[in-house]
C-alpha cells in the first residue's frame, strides 16, 4: 500500500466530487476520473433543488432527515453557491388541504422547520402563484447550481492535493488476484490508454454503476429511473413552489437564475445514456405546472431535459416510491471482489453525507482512522478549479 | 483555409472576416476599419498630388485634365463615402464609448448611415451636375 493510500474515484458527479473532497481532506491521495465534463450525467440535469426534506417527510422519513441535515450543512460550507429563498408547499384542493396535517406532523418528526403562513401573505410574496390556493407552508428549501456545486467540491479537493482527470474514461479494471488493484483508462484528449494503480477504487458512477460493477463481477441493484424537466424562460417565483401532497409528477416549480423549472416525472429506463424526451411527458409537466403558477401557460418554453436517477431498486415497489436514500456497497463483505466500493442512490443535496459514509468505509477497509471534517470546512470558489 | 487551426494563433484577427457571425455592430466595426485604411491610403496619394504643385504648371496641368474625367470623379465619390461613413460612425463610437446611447447603438448607426447616404447623394449631384 502506498503512503498515503491512493484512492481512485470513478465519476465526477455530486457523489464523486464530494467524496474526492472528503478523502483529500482526510489526507489520502485521490484521483478522480470522469469520462466527460464534470456533472455531465445525472447531477448536471437535476432539478437544482436543495431539499429541505419536506417532499419526503411523510413517505420517506429516513430520506427527509438526511435532506434537512445536509441542507443546513451546505448553507454553511457553500453559501455563495446557493439561492437561499426557502420553499412553499401549497394546497390546491381539499385533498391537499387534508394532507396538511400529515405534512406538518412529518416535518416536525423529521425536524424540518416548517411554518404555516396565511394565504394572503403567501400571494403577496409570490404574486404569480395560483390565487386559489387553500394553504401555504414555508420550509427551508433552496436552490443550487449543479455544475458549480460539483466544481466547488473538486476545486477544494484539488487544493488539498487531489488529481482530477475529466474526459478520461474507464475501460477496464485491473486485478491482483481477485481484488481490484487499479483501473485502465482511455484518455480522450491524447487518445492513449493507460493503467492507474490504486489501493481502493470508489465506483461513484450513479446510474452507470452497473457497468463498472460488471467489470468487477459484482452486482449493484441500481434502477435508472428517468425524469423529465421543463424550463420556462421567465422567473415566476422567488421561492421553490411545491404542491402539498405525496410526491407526484409535475408538482414542483424551482426558480433558477432567470428561469423556472417544472418537474418532474418518473419512468424506468434500461440504458441511462442519451434518454429520449417523450412529448406527452412535457405536456404533462406544463399542465401540472400551470396548476401551481398559471402564468406558466404564457411563458416561453426554454429547454427540456431528461436524465436517469440512480435509485436503489427494491422489488415490488413503483419507481416513484423507491427511497431517495443512498447506500454504500462494500463488495468484499458481500462475497465479491475486494478493493472496490460502490456508492449509489441518494440525492445531490445529500452528496456530502454520502461522501462521508463511503469515505468511512474506504478508511476502514484501508485500516486507517481519520475523522471526517467536511461538515465544518468551507469550500473554495468553483473557479479555483481552473487555477 | 480553416481559420480555427490552433497553429494560426498569430492570424486570429482573420476571424473578423468570418461573416457568418456578423451582425450590424460587427458590420459597422469592419466598415470603420476598411474606411480607415482607405483614408490613410488617400492621405499619401494626396501628398503625392500636392508634390506636383511644387513642379509648377507643367506638372500640375496634365493632372487636372485627368481629375476632370468621370472615372476620376467616381474615385472622389468613393472618397466622400468613406469620409462620411468613417466620420459619422466615429461619432457613434465616441458617444457610446463614453456611455451615451449604449442601448441605441443600432438605430444610431442606421440613422447616421441614412444621413451619410443623403449627403453623399447631394455630393454626387453637385459633382456631376454642378
Amino acid at each position, binding site marked *: 500500500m502506498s503512503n498515503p493510500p491512493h484512492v481512485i474515484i470513478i465519476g465526477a458527479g455530486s457523489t464523486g466530487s464530494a467524496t474526492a473532497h472528503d478523502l483529500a481532506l482526510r489526507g489520502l491521495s485521490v484521483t478522480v476520473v470522469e469520462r466527460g465534463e464534470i456533472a455531465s450525467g445525472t447531477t448536471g440535469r437535476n432539478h437544482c433543488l436543495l431539499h429541505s426534506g419536506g417532499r419526503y417527510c411523510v413517505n420517506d422519513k429516513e430520506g427527509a432527515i438526511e435532506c434537512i441535515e445536509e441542507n443546513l450543512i451546505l448553507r454553511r460550507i457553500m453559501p455563495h453557491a446557493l439561492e437561499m429563498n426557502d420553499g412553499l408547499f401549497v394546497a390546491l384542493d381539499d385533498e391537499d388541504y387534508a394532507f396538511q396535517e400529515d405534512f406538518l406532523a412529518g416535518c416536525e418528526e423529521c425536524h424540518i422547520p416548517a411554518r404555516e403562513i396565511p394565504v394572503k401573505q403567501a400571494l403577496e410574496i409570490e404574486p404569480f402563484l395560483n390565487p386559489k390556493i387553500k394553504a401555504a407552508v414555508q420550509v427551508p428549501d433552496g436552490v443550487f447550481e449543479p455544475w458549480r456545486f460539483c466544481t466547488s467540491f473538486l476545486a477544494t479537493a484539488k487544493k488539498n492535493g487531489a488529481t482530477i482527470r475529466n474526459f478520461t474514461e474507464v475501460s477496464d479494471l485491473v486485478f491482483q488476484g481477485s481484488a481490484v488493484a487499479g483501473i485502465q483508462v482511455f484518455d480522450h484528449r491524447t487518445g492513449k490508454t493507460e493503467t492507474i494503480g490504486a489501493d481502493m477504487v470508489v465506483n461513484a458512477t450513479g446510474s452507470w454503476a452497473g457497468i463498472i460493477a460488471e467489470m468487477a463481477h459484482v452486482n449493484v441493484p441500481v434502477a435508472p429511473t428517468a425524469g423529465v424537466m421543463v424550463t420556462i424562460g421567465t422567473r415566476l417565483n422567488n421561492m421553490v413552489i411545491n404542491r402539498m401532497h405525496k410526491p407526484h409528477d409535475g408538482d414542483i416549480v424551482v426558480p433558477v437564475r432567470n428561469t423556472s423549472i417544472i418537474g418532474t416525472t418518473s419512468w424506468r429506463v434500461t440504458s441511462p445514456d442519451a434518454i429520449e424526451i417523450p412529448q406527452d411527458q412535457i405536456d404533462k409537466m406544463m399542465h401540472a405546472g400551470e396548476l401551481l403558477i398559471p402564468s406558466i401557460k404564457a411563458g416561453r418554453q426554454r429547454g427540456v*431535459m431528461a436524465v436517469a436517477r440512480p435509485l436503489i431498486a427494491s422489488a415490488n415497489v413503483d419507481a416513484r416510491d423507491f427511497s431517495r436514500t443512498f447506500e454504500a456497497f462494500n463488495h468484499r463483505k458481500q462475497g465479491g471482489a475486494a478493493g472496490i466500493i460502490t456508492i449509489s442512490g441518494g440525492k445531490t443535496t445529500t452528496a456530502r453525507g454520502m461522501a462521508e459514509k463511503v469515505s468511512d468505509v474506504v478508511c476502514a477497509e484501508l485500516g486507517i482512522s481519520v475523522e471526517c471534517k467536511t461538515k465544518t470546512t468551507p469550500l473554495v470558489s468553483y473557479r479555483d478549479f481552473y487555477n | 483555409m480553416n481559420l480555427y487551426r490552433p497553429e494560426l494563433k498569430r492570424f486570429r484577427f482573420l476571424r473578423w472576416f468570418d461573416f457568418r457571425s456578423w451582425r450590424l455592430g460587427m458590420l459597422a466595426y469592419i466598415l470603420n476599419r476598411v474606411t480607415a485604411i482607405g483614408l490613410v491610403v488617400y492621405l499619401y496619394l494626396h501628398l503625392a498630388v500636392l508634390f506636383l504643385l511644387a513642379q509648377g504648371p507643367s506638372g500640375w496641368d496634365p493632372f487636372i485634365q485627368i481629375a476632370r474625367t468621370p472615372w476620376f470623379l467616381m474615385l472622389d465619390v468613393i472618397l466622400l463615402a468613406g469620409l462620411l461613413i468613417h466620420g459619422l460612425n466615429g461619432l457613434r463610437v465616441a458617444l457610446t464609448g463614453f456611455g451615451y446611447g449604449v442601448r441605441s447603438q443600432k438605430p444610431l448607426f442606421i440613422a447616421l448611415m441614412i444621413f451619410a447616404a443623403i449627403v453623399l447623394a447631394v455630393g454626387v449631384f453637385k459633382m456631376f451636375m454642378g
Partner: protein
Amino acid sequence: MSLQVTLKILRSRPHQEQRYDTFDVTVPDAANVLDAIEQAWAHHDRDLMFRHACHHASCGTCAVRINGREKLPCIAPVKDYDGGEIKIEPLRNFPIVGDLVVDVAPFFQNQEASDFIITRPTENELDGKAIAHTQGLDPESAPTVPFNRFENCVECGICLSACPTMSADYKFFGPAGLAAIKRQLDKTTDANEREKLLHLADDEHGVWRCHSAWECTEACPQSVFPAESIMALRKEINAQRFKKFFRL
C-alpha cells in the same frame, strides 16, 4: 414525431489533423441541438468530446458555435435549423482541448480576479415584495434577509468567442470579466475595494481595448449586456481621473 438531422462537427485533437465529421441522428421534436450532439456521441462515436452539464442554460459549459454563431446548444431547438446540416464548431479565441471542448482556465481566472460573487439580491419584477427568513424560520429571531438569486451571467465564454478584440489581443480581459467587475462594483461600497476593481478595469488590456463591435452583447444568451458594463466602467474611471486631476 421525430426530426432527422445531420450534424457536421469539427473534430480536433492535438495529435490529429482537423476534420469535419458528419453524423445523421434522429431526435424528438422537442430536442435541442445539445440532445442531437449527445445522440451522436451515444450512437455513433463515443470519442466525441463536448462539454455539457445542466441542459437548461444555467451552467454555461456547453457553449459552441452553431452555423458560425455562438450559442448554447442546450436551448437551441433543432427545429429552428429545419432541413440541411447543422455545423458545429468549438468557441473561438480559446485554446482547443479536443473537438468541441476548449480550455476555459484563463477565462475563469479573469472571472475570479474581481472576486465576482455569482449570487445577488433579486431585482426583477418580483422585487420589493418580501423577504425570506432563512434561519430556523422563526420570524421574531430570524434576520430579515432579502431574496437572493444567481446572477444572469452563466460564464459560458460566448462573449469572448464573439469579441473581435479578443481575436487580436488574447490578453484582453474580455466582456464577461469586465461585466463581472461592474457587477461587483455595484455590490460594494467599500472605497478600497472599489479602487481595486477600477484599477483592474483600467488596464492596458482592460476597458479601453473594447472597440465597440457589440458582438458580445448580441451573442449573449442571458441578456447580460456586457458592452454596457464596459462603457459604464469607462465613465467611472474618467470621473475618477477628472476628480484627481482637479483635486476635487
